[in-house]
Structures are given as C-alpha cells and as structure tokens.
C-alpha cells in the first residue's frame, strides 16, 4: 500500500531531481520551445517541497490533489496544467478507489491527454506516460517500467512535434529530445526509487 510517507519521499526526490536537471531541461526546451521548462518545473516542485509538511499531513488522495493544485498555480507554463492535471486526477481516482493505483495512473494520463488535446507519438510527455501505463498494466517490475520510460524519451528525438510550441518548427523539431518527455522521466525515476 502507498501512503503519504511514500508520497513525501517521492515528492522530495522529484524536487531534487528536477532541481539537479533544471539546466538540462531548459537547454532541451531552448532548442525547440521557449527555454523556460527547467525554471518552470523547478519553481513548481520547489513550491511543493516547501509545503511538504502540510501536503503530506493529508490522506494520500487529498495530498495528491494538493500537489496538483500547487503545480497548476506555480509552474506558469503549459506544463503547469499538464502535470497539475496528472496529480489532480491521481488524487480524484484514488479517493474513489483507494488502492487501484494502476487504474488511477491510466486515468490520469488520459486526463493529461485531454488537457493538452494531444495523444501519443506527437513528441510530448504523453510519449512517455502512455508506455509507462502499458508497462504498469502488464505488471512489469519497477526496473522494467523505468527502462520503458527511458527508451520512450529517446524515441521522441526522431519524432516531429505536432502539439505545443515545438510544432511551430515543423520538421526542424526532429532531432531533439522533447523536454516534457525528459521531465516526466525524472518524475518516474524518482518515484520508482522510493515507492514500494
């Protein structure tokens, strides 16, 4: 069972990873977007870390919703509503079915797709989130799930962007890893390191 203490460890690990990779995310974003992804993600997860005691005093589902709201309010770019929706939906789903983690994750990924009006293979974070949902549903061990996510990030390099700012570049977006895919791998790696 996952509880608020697991969430606490996961969120702090995510905040640390995002902070450590902020410049890398910004560099990836500068190539095909507007170069603010690192700073935006760092602002969002720093705000979550600063509020970690209040957030994790809540039951898991409520805590996840609080994380989502915090990200929406602090990230500032399009990733705010996208990552915010991921956590908000995890919270909403787990409030109804407390231990249906894999189902909740699938629903959360679908909610992110709806929020971004996007789908898989459009060079976004969904290119990572969807294969991870498939791997979780297949019951793969954590190390395999992380491997799937890593391969998925690499796969965004040769893809052409169809959604988001990078789509303005058309074919010129090919050859660059998607920054949102990269940041979602940071979340998945950090979470996998601490979740049971």
């Amino acid at each position, binding site marked *: 069972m996952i509880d608020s203490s697991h969430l606490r460890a996961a969120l702090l690990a995510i905040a640390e990873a995002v902070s450590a990779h902020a410049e890398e995310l910004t560099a990836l974003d500068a190539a095909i977007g507007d170069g*603010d992804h690192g700073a935006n993600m760092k*602002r969002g997860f720093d705000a979550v870390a600063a509020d970690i005691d209040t957030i994790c005093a809540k039951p898991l589902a409520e805590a996840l919703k609080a994380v989502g709201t915090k990200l*929406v*309010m602090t990230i*500032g*770019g*399009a990733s*705010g509503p996208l990552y915010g929706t991921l956590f908000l939906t995890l919270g909403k789903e787990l409030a109804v079915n407390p231990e249906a983690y894999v189902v909740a994750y699938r629903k959360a990924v679908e909610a992110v797709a709806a*929020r971004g009006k996007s789908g898989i293979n459009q060079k976004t974070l969904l290119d990572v989130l969807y294969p991870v949902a498939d791997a979780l549903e297949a019951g793969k061990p954590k190390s395999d799930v992380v491997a799937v996510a890593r391969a998925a990030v690499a796969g965004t390099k040769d893809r052409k962007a169809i959604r988001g700012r990078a789509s303005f570049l058309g074919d010129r977006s090919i050859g660059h890893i998607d920054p949102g895919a990269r940041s979602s791998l940071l979340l998945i790696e950090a979470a996998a390191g601490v979740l049971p």
Partner: protein
Amino acid sequence: MKNVGIVIVSHSPLVAEGAASMVRQMVGDDVPLAWCGGNPEGGLGTSVEAIIAAIDRAWSDRGVAILVDLGGAETNSEMAVEMLDGDRSHKVVVCNAPVVEGAVMAATEASGGASLAEVRATAEELSPA
C-alpha cells in the same frame, strides 16, 4: 444592461495591457475588461492564479470571453476556468481567435449586448476553420 466581459491573457504583460488599451479606445467603457500576463515570478508566461483574478475583475453574469495568445496561455486559461467556484465555469469560454483582433471584435460585439455565444462566434470568425 450588463454586457459580457472580456479577459485578455498573454505571456507578456505589455502585450496584454496594450491589447486592453486598444479595446478601451476602440470600444469604450461599456464592457467589463481585464488583462493579465507573465508567469508567477513576473517573467514571460501565464499564471492560473492571475487568470482567475482577471476573470473575477471582468465578471459579468452574462458571461466572460477569454482571448489568449500562445500554447500555455490557452491551457492555463482552460485550467483556470475549471477551477472557478460554483457553476461560474459554465459562463466562461476560451476563444480560438488571435488575441488583439479577437479582443477588439469580441468587445465590439459584447458592447452591443450580444450573448456569450455570439461574442465568441464573432471573435472566432477571425480564425481559419
């Protein structure tokens, strides 16, 4: 008679404020109007909190039409609309229209007492289908 309100959301506070002053000059003061721009740190970007506050400032019971510039402004505006309290979110729409021309056209339509659907349609006529 209360008219539909207009909110302008840009990554840049300068663009948002400039578009708002064009609306005021061309359309006048009969339309509730608010703008916001910039991320939570004051850099280029958009802030859900600021968008919610702008919707409050331009609030009309007839509804509010939001005009946005690029990507994140649209996603953040849609998120802001969903986070409004009560059933107010049903009275707010994000228009698929260019921000400056859309704001002026939407405000012109609104100043004549048009419904939210009419205001939105007028702004969206500016976008290729």
